[in-house]
């Protein structure tokens, strides 16, 4: 090639190429746009809340009930979050870093409880461990008349934890999968046992992942209604529910705002806890941490996984089956026939929501992980707000806004999926962000110096590396969409039924047993889908 060419080429390029300002600008604009779009429906809450007299609102918010119920809620949130970490993190380690037999199976069973609507779980627990439940029946012949009550704070914590710990499990696992193992080796040659190395090296670095999951758990516990109600524990969302029952949307909105404030508080706590996470990536080692040999611990580990799976999956389904057998005769009719289309509707919706969330999460997560300015994590924080809003509130907001601004989308699948995205986007954002934090920023630089536009560099380099995080995010969104009830009920097209609307239907009719069948199918189908999703994480 001619020399003149080369020099001229350089010159030419120098004169023609656009002069870029900050590569983060575009990203910031996109992220901001997405988060604004997602936050927009919440304006409705403020509109409604504005309808109430200020003094009345203050009175409502400062009443004894509000205060005591708020305290109850905070106790519940704290308890569930801590307990979820205690269950989710060990399970993540077992399935990601040890030679536990049947790891893939346990990975799926550990994630699946997320698909069990927690109110079903709560039913099952009450049926099993309630004062006259299965356990009590079993024990009474032995002369044990009284068993400790399952009701109350501890019961609510137990049940909520068992059905939300998968948030922590999945996010932690994703972090562990993208974790660079050389530093663990380094710690061990500095005479740290596996456990010490984990505590001092692995833990601090997967902390953003754990925090992302814990945040989701906390916000879930904050906004859940069904479980605490069944567990006879009084929480804040019940107040909102009651206002809806009374059709006082303005009151409900004011209370929702207080709920949002609590959510913001939790977000702030989380931000503070993971503030030190800009200990940016540096080790260029790419070794996977070696598998931990469990040795004697294999049996207890299997027992642990098995116990959790039994409590979270076998127990509820078993109880439902028992109801099914017990419910015997008396009911028949097409209204309760389960149709295959419900399954496809559910899977389709969940898949669409997962896909959109994953895509929308990328720019937001990337900006939050790599952005330099203080406001770059604002869009990310903003997405969590939607997650903390109870489904009914969101549903009504979208009914209201949908009817006024996009009537052609009203009661369409599109609006429904949009609702899912608002509710569940942070699940994808959190996992994606914590994975991005673990990717060496030099990879992007290397790709750019090889002529790649930042976007394509991202696609070719970062994307495959954060696949575990994205897969986890997709799984989270998928599973939670599968079981989402309130927004689904309010926004679905008329005549469009899914797993949960069907379960809700039969349960509402008192045919608890009937719920066993779709619940089984729900779990089975979700398990299969999870298999597909988790396959993706192997691409890295």
């Amino acid at each position: 090639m001619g020399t003149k060419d080369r020099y001229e080429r350089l010159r030419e390029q120098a004169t023609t190429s656009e002069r870029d300002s900050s590569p983060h600008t575009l990203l910031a604009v996109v992220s901001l746009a997405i988060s604004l779009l997602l936050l927009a429906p919440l304006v409705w809450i403020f509109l409604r809340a504005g309808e109430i007299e200020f003094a009345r609102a203050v009175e409502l918010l400062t009443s004894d009930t509000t205060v005591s119920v708020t305290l109850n809620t905070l106790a519940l949130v704290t308890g569930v979050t801590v307990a979820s970490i205690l269950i989710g993190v060990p399970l993540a380690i077992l399935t990601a870093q040890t030679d536990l037999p049947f790891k893939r199976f346990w990975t799926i069973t550990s994630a699946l409880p997320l698909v069990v609507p927690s109110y079903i779980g709560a039913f099952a627990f009450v049926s099993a461990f309630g004062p006259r439940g299965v356990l009590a029946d079993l024990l009474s012949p032995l002369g044990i008349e009284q068993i400790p009550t399952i009701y109350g704070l501890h019961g609510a914590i137990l049940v909520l934890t068992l059905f939300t710990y998968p948030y922590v499990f999945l996010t932690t696992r994703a972090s562990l999968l993208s974790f660079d193992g050389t530093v663990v080796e380094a710690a061990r040659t500095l005479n740290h046992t596996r456990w010490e190395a984990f505590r001092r090296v692995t833990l601090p670095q997967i902390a953003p992942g754990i925090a992302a999951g814990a945040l989701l758990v906390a916000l879930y516990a904050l906004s859940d209604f069904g479980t605490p109600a069944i567990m006879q524990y009084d929480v804040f969302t019940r107040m909102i529910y009651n206002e809806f029952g009374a059709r006082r949307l303005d009151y409900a909105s004011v209370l929702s705002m207080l709920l949002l404030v609590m959510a913001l508080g939790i977000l702030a706590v989380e931000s503070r806890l993971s503030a030190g996470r800009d200990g940016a990536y540096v080790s260029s080692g790419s070794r996977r941490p070696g598998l931990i040999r469990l040795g004697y611990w294999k049996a207890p580990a299997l027992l642990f996984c098995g116990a959790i799976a039994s409590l979270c999956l076998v127990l509820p389904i078993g109880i439902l089956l028992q109801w099914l057998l017990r419910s015997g005769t008396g009911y028949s009719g097409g209204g309760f026939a389960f149709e295959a289309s419900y399954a496809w509707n559910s899977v389709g919706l969940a898949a669409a929501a997962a896909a959109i969330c994953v895509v929308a999460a990328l720019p937001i997560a990337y900006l939050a992980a790599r952005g330099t300015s203080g406001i770059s994590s604002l869009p990310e924080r903003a997405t969590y707000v939607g997650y903390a809003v109870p489904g009914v509130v969101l549903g009504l907001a979208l009914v209201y806004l949908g009817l006024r601004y996009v009537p052609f989308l009203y009661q369409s699948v599109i609006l429904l999926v949009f609702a899912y995205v608002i509710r569940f986007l942070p699940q994808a954002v959190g996992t994606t962000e914590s994975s991005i934090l673990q990717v060496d920023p030099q990879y992007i630089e290397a790709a750019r110096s090889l002529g790649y536009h930042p976007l394509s560099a991202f696609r070719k380099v970062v994307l495959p590396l954060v696949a575990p995080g994205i897969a986890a995010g997709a799984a989270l969104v998928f599973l939670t969409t599968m079981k989402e009830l309130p927004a689904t009920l309010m926004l679905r097209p008329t005549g469009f039924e899914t797993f949960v609307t069907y379960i809700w239907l039969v349960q509402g009719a008192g045919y608890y047993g009937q719920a066993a069948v779709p619940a089984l199918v729900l779990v089975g189908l979700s398990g299969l889908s999870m298999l597909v999703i988790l396959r993706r994480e192997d691409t890295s």
Partner: protein
Amino acid sequence: SGILGGGDGGEGGSDGGTDTGAGQISLSDFRGSGPLVEQRDAPGGTSIEELPDLSGELTLYLGGGEGGLYLDLINLLEQLYPDFTANHRLEASSDLANTIIEENEAGASPADVFMSIDAGSLGAVANAGATASLPEEALSTVPEAYQDSEGRWVGIAGRARAIPYNTNQISESDIPSTVQEFPETAALENSMGWAPSYGAFQSFVTAMRLIRGDDETMSWLQAMQDHGITTYDDEFRVSNACADGELTAGFANHYYTLRVQSARDDSPIGLAFTEGDAGALVNVSGLEIIDGTDNADLASNFVRHVLSAEAQEFFATRTFAYPMIPGVAPVGDLPRIDDLNPPDINLTELADVAGTVDLLRDAGVL
């Protein structure tokens, strides 16, 4: 039908008719099965056969959990009339009411008919001016107490407040005959349950407020709490807890007890009623036609079908509700509505749930 079939369907002598041919539907399809339903007389009232055929597409908002049960009825009608389709949308009654009101404000609701398990929701929609008028033929078959005074909604099935109790722990005669006496009944101390966030319970409290005023209602609520009462999230669970022996007695709608009895053979659960007070309130499920429907004729005809002898037999034997037309008797050994001695109140006024929620909250119940 679905891959998993309809569960326990077909046993009540429906001869597989639920699945096959139109026009083959007979009374036995509308009627339930089991011990409670045996040896019933043929229902009186207008038979479906006397009504014009249903034909066309109807959009039906179906409120309430048990509303699911009503789907069976809709299905039967669809089988009966091949030209008839009901697009239904099933949600909690109060949510649907909220939705209809929103929709109505924004233009027109897609709904033609709102069918709700709760008169309060019907009233709310009516009060928001979102209803159209109902056919006189339909209104005339239903006692005045169970329809809106302005004819904007009509009851289709009655739901009585009742006291489920555990027959091993207490006998019917020990159960007080007014709600007012419950806090003073030693046998029930610390062994009762209620579901205060449940709509039917709130209607009961609303009724109490209408009858006795807020202050007395408040004292009663407090007295009940002092007496010791456990909170549940719905009344089916209250009823089950009674059957389990977890509770001695509770406050719940009557049909839950029948449902427990029907589902669990020989369960030790009985049903008692109070007299003349809110505890004996008979609330209704009902129907209204939504304003702006371009299907008014079909909607009217549909309402008449729901009030036909067969449909009322359905409500009585399948949902264990009180039928709304005199020709059909309630199931089993349920007292007739007239024997129940319900309080005399305007059901539309039950729509004031807000005041009740405030009261319940002030009482520390909610």
